[in-house]
């Protein structure tokens, strides 16, 4: 949000007009779709988790790791064949919030920039969209772990 500027009467009237014609977002419908798509992706993830627990001796706690990798592999195929775009249009945040969305942002950036060459194009742009998730994830994890470790060293925790 920018700074609120003093508006002339004409500008105010324009703002009112704009507000009247602005498309109302169907929030409830969007949320329902996000719930369905996101829930389904997590259910598929749960099936993959059980697959790793029964056939590869992972435990409930450690099976999340290979599950995430498998889901990213699936999202590579879906992104490459152009299916993920459609899922994203229908599901909104339901397709963006699961790790498949993270995978999709990496893979689509990689595919999109391959015409610029593998070093500068693919290598340089791969984390264009996902980089912010990495940065804030790593930095917040660093702060959280630092605070907790310091607290336990000082004997507070």
């Amino acid at each position: 949000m920018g700074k609120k500027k003093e508006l002339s009467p004409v500008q105010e009237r324009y703002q009112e007009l704009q507000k009247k014609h602005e498309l109302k977002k169907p929030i409830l419908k969007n949320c329902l779709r996000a719930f369905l798509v996101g829930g389904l992706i997590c259910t598929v993830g749960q099936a993959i988790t059980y697959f790793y627990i029964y056939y590869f001796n992972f435990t409930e706690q450690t099976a999340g790791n290979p599950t995430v990798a498998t889901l990213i592999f699936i999202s590579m195929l879906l992104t490459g064949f152009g299916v993920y775009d459609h899922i994203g249009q229908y599901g909104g945040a339901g397709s963006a919030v699961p790790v498949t969305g993270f995978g999709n942002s990496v893979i689509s950036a990689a595919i999109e920039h391959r015409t610029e060459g593998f070093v500068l194009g693919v290598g340089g742009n791969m984390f264009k969209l996902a980089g912010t998730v990495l940065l804030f994830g790593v930095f917040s994890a660093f702060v959280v772990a630092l605070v907790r470790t310091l607290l336990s060293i000082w004997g507070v925790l």
Partner: protein
Amino acid sequence: MLPMFFWAFVVGGLICVIGQLMFDVANLTPGHTMSILVVAGAVLDGFGLYEPLVDFAGAGATVPITSFGNSLAHGALMEAEQHGLVGVLTGMFEVTSSGISAAIVFGFIGALLFKPKG
């Protein structure tokens, strides 16, 4: 086994609804939304609240991006218990290595296999 699928669906779906509300109501970009969710996951793990959610909802908690922040913080904390402050840096990617390496490897393979459309 069946209740686990149910709770994975419900909890995973609800986390996505939170994301959708951040899109629609708070008018945040996907980048901002993802960043906030990742930070939320790391902070929740700092209070020890994310592990119980994983036990309860399985993939409903490990598949959304919040688990990425959780496993980053978790790895750092586990290593910090053994090696003190240095462990915060050395343990950071210990748990979450598969997500990052999968994204890089499959991202590159995807770029080799597929041509951009349009």
